[in-house]
């Protein structure tokens, strides 16, 4: 059993479990949306004093912070007890494209060129992660949700606004991948 769990999980297993988590949270009386945590963290740090967007009862969202803590723990459990031997099996076409950017083929889960501590302690590497994170935080709140809130929860409820947001996610993602990354690397 453990050997099976250690293999990479196929997409249909993952999709089914994600849908299960969304339904589970509905039965807990909550709604699946991860990026709300970023607003809750701001509010918990006292951002409500300077911007009224953060002036709300963030303690009512403690459940979502607990979900976040669980997500980190889930990552730790995967790395510590369920890790397989293999590098991420991306397609050869992607390996070739990334080679042109100077990113070597997968050796683990993430490219060393971006996420190693050496990369982080270079100005470019640091700014890349900081700006990337900033865009995620700003964009998700502006759009009112991220992949979980819009692409999963919103689309499951057939919400047109969520479809527009997902189209936006892809416009941004395609611009970054095809136009900006070649300029950055």
């Amino acid at each position, binding site marked *: 059993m453990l050997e099976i769990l250690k293999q990479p999980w196929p997409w249909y297993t993952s999709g089914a479990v994600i849908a299960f988590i969304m339904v589970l949270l509905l039965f807990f009386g909550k709604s699946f949306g991860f990026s709300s945590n970023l607003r809750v963290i701001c509010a918990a740090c006292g951002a409500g004093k300077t*911007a009224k967007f953060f002036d709300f009862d963030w303690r009512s969202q403690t459940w979502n912070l607990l979900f976040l803590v669980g997500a980190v723990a889930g990552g730790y459990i995967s790395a510590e007890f369920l890790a397989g031997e293999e590098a991420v099996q991306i397609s050869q076409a992607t390996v070739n494209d990334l080679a042109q950017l100077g990113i070597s083929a997968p050796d683990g889960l993430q490219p060393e060129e971006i996420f190693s501590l050496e990369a982080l302690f270079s100005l470019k590497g640091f700014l890349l992660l900081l700006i990337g994170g900033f865009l995620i935080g700003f964009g998700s709140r502006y*759009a009112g949700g991220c992949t979980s809130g819009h692409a999963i929860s919103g689309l499951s409820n057939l919400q047109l606004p969520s479809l527009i947001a997902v189209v936006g996610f892809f416009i941004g993602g395609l611009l970054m991948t095809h136009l900006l990354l070649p300029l950055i690397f």
Partner: protein
Amino acid sequence: MKGIKFILAGILFGIVMSKSEAISWFRIQEMFRFQAFHMYGIIGTAVVLGVIAVALIKKFNLRDYQGNPIVFQPKEKSVPRYLIGGTIFGLGWALTGACPGPLFVNLGHAYWAFLVAVGGAIAGTYFYGLIKDRLPH
């Protein structure tokens, strides 16, 4: 301890995102280059099953574990906020190879560089809160 169920749900989320490699920068690049079905399969399966589940919850007026009706808040109608906000989000998603969930799941894998991205995401959220009223929604 009422909160433990949320921690357990989060653990399941962290494991499934890890084991299906959805937290990998490589997989997100592959997705935005349309070079594999993997990520589309994950999101597609989740949405198809999610649509069915939500329809059933509505049809049978199912209630949550405390007996309260499960209500779905419709998203407020607009185009600019979703399109512009979504595009900004997408730029960050493709750059870091992570959306908000995976930003944190990666910390469990001891990819400490993601702490900088998490700091950026909190700063970005705060900045949105500051200038929100001046943006088209």
